[in-house]
């Protein structure tokens, strides 16, 4: 079938771009959110070649296309409508195509990392605190609680390739679960843990090997714990062949041929080519770094301090432990640690400057904890989340790190152990307290100042995109958030409050469904009257049941006899089981349509379990949304 034609016809029948808010798809259906569902020609949609069915549910228009077809129509649909799908790489890539390759690569790296930052920030902070605390109280390392916390702290790093792979698959437009599989292959428990390799070699143990490519060469069966770049390369490749295969493989067998071939090919290439090549590069970098730091007069240290963050980007920094162990056993002083510490602290400083200066609240909320994590010595969040994406802070941080490392080298600072940097570094540099403090201060001051001067907030295109749909709801002003008090019902609708006994319907007036109030609505929007859970909705969309955590049950029944309107004029924005916050929009209704149908618009707001309470106190008269209208007397 002609996917393009199918997508084009759907696009025309749903009211084109101006009526579309978002588009997504599941295994069989194209799911569209439209600004106005009445503009959608459902009858004609059903006749489109390829469409197997159409229905609208909870404000979402679902078009059934079938497995193997829906994703192809979706791709065409995106290209016709010009919509940006957050999870689709194609569109993003198109926007980024004008930039030079290195910038595109850095951007991809940032896009991959941002969604997984919360996981890394959590792990990073736990790890930093935990390592610091064991340096203060060495006995703690033997406690069971420490061991459990230690699991929490490194789980995200040990399995980082899986997180990275899932995120990368989203960015590159591959299937995220296949991406996860590639990530899992790279840290499979049957492979030797990458962090144990150095220890095993030292102990003279053999690293298990495997013949590959029909005996052409051997690879070490080692995992890629903590790695980033090889994972991204692997998943990029995976997404590439997966998308290719979707195009070539006939629809009938697409579902099993494509994943099978994708995993086999990508997995094999990853473990036999991408991984080993990268591991070799890492080794050379390590040798290079060891040579660089032998350059005297602080110059070597400065260079190492500058390039340190770049090695973090590559995930090689975990291997520096071998360098540090060597130094301690040779001279008793770990002179690598001050270099790493300056570099980390400087990245934190640069990130901190951005956090303070940016006006973008979301960005600020991410940059601030990222910088704290860096001060404790875990820089991934700051580097990937902030500095690398903006580029300038990364460079400012590199300069700060270089200056700090040079200062540290001139003071001759050395640590007596390894494993911690940043603020906790004081614990292992007890002979150089003030020198270490000066070094950190210099790193911070240089990077913070440079970063503060150079950082400017860019107008972000994504924000402009996000604001567009909000405009369509302009007539419904956003409500301030309120703190709910127990036993209080806040007005769900703007209008005039009357006692429930005056509702023009004998069932409601008699209190059969419970006591409460009636609201004669002025505006057809229903907001959640308290924090709670939606306990019932109906197919006719005109009534909502909501219950509060302390057991209050409330029925909001819009209009009288409106069940007979069978949903016409009503739109629900919540579903049964949803947790809602006071002031959240639950429903819109058309006052005109209810009047035209000949019914009263008076909306019953009733506490259906009012028998459980001593009584109610109601506030009559005009009300705005979220004015308190009912108070329960226990």
């Amino acid at each position: 079938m002609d996917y393009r034609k199918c997508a084009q016809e759907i696009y025309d029948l749903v009211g084109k771009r101006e009526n579309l808010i978002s588009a997504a798809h599941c295994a069989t259906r194209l799911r569209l959110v439209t600004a106005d569902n009445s503009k959608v020609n459902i009858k004609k949609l059903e006749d489109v070649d390829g469409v197997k069915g159409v229905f609208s549910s909870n404000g979402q228009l679902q078009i059934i296309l079938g497995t193997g077809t829906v994703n192809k129509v979706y791709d065409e649909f995106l290209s016709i409508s010009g919509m940006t799908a957050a999870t689709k790489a194609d569109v993003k890539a198109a926007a980024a195509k004008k930039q030079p390759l290195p910038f595109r690569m850095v951007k991809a790296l940032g896009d991959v990392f941002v969604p997984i930052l919360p996981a890394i920030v959590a792990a990073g902070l736990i790890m930093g605190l935990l390592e610091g605390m064991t340096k203060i109280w060495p006995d703690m390392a033997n406690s069971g609680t420490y061991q459990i916390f230690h699991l929490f702290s490194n789980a995200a790093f040990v399995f980082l390739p899986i997180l990275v792979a899932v995120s990368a698959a989203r960015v590159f437009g591959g299937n995220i679960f296949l991406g996860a599989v590639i990530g899992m292959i790279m840290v499979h428990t049957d492979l030797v843990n990458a962090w144990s390799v150095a220890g095993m070699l030292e102990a003279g143990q053999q690293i298990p090997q495997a013949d590959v490519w029909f005996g052409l060469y051997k690879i070490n069966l080692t995992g890629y714990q903590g790695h980033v770049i090889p994972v991204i390369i692997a998943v990029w490749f995976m997404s590439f062949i997966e998308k290719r295969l979707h195009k070539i493989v006939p629809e009938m067998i697409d579902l099993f041929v494509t994943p099978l071939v994708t995993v086999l090919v990508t997995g094999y290439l990853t473990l036999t080519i991408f991984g080993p090549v990268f591991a070799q590069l890492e080794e050379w970098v390590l040798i290079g770094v060891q040579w660089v730091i032998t350059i005297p007069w602080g110059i070597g240290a400065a260079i190492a301090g500058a390039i340190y963050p770049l090695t973090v980007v590559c995930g090689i920094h975990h291997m520096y432990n071998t360098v540090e162990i060597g130094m301690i056993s040779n001279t008793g002083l770990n002179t690598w640690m001050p270099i790493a510490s300056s570099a980390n602290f400087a990245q934190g400083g640069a990130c901190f400057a951005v956090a303070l200066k940016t006006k973008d609240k979301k960005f600020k909320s991410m940059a601030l904890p990222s910088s704290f994590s860096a001060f404790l010595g875990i820089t991934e969040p700051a580097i990937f989340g902030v500095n690398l994406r903006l580029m300038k802070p990364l460079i400012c941080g590199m300069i700060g790190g270089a200056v700090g490392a040079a200062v540290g080298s001139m003071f001759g600072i050395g640590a007596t152990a390894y494993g911690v940097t940043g603020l906790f570094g004081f614990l292992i540099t007890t002979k150089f307290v003030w020198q270490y403090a000066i070094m950190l201060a210099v790193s911070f001051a240089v990077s913070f100042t440079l970063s503060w001067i150079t950082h400017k907030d860019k107008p972000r295109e994504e924000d402009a995109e996000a604001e567009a749909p909000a405009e369509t709801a302009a007539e419904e002003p956003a409500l301030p958030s309120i703190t709910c008090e127990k036993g209080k019902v806040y007005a769900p609708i703007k209008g005039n409050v009357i006692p429930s006994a005056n509702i023009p319907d004998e069932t409601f007036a008699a209190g059969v469904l419970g006591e409460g109030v009636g609201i004669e609505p002025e505006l057809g929007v229903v907001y959640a009257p308290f924090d709670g859970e939606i306990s019932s909705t109906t197919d006719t969309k005109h009534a909502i049941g909501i219950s509060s955590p302390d057991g209050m049950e409330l029925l909001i029944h819009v209009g009288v006899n409106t069940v007979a309107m069978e949903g016409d004029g009503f739109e629900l924005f919540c579903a049964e089981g949803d947790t809602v916050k006071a002031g959240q929009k639950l429903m819109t209704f058309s006052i005109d349509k209810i009047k035209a149908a000949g019914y009263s618009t008076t909306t019953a707001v009733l506490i259906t379990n009012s028998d459980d309470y001593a009584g109610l106190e109601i506030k009559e008269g005009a009300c705005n949304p979220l004015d308190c209208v009912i108070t329960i007397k226990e």
Partner: protein
Amino acid sequence: MKSFTYTITDPVGIHARPAGILVKAVKPFQSTCKITKGEKTVDLRKLMALMGMGIKCGDTVEVTIEGADEDTAAETIEKFFKENL
């Protein structure tokens, strides 16, 4: 334990008003009254839960009554269903 099945004939199904009246009709009895549609069973005394069932015209439901006054309760409730729902 007493039980009966019934197919709803009220065109709007067990919605707010019918549900309200039904709950009121059940309240006076001591017995535990439950209503089942498909795999979902709820207490007939709980209005929200009852409405959450989304029982429509044409749906067949099973009502079970268990307790001291189950005989009179079953009789009254079945009569209520036939007359009102």
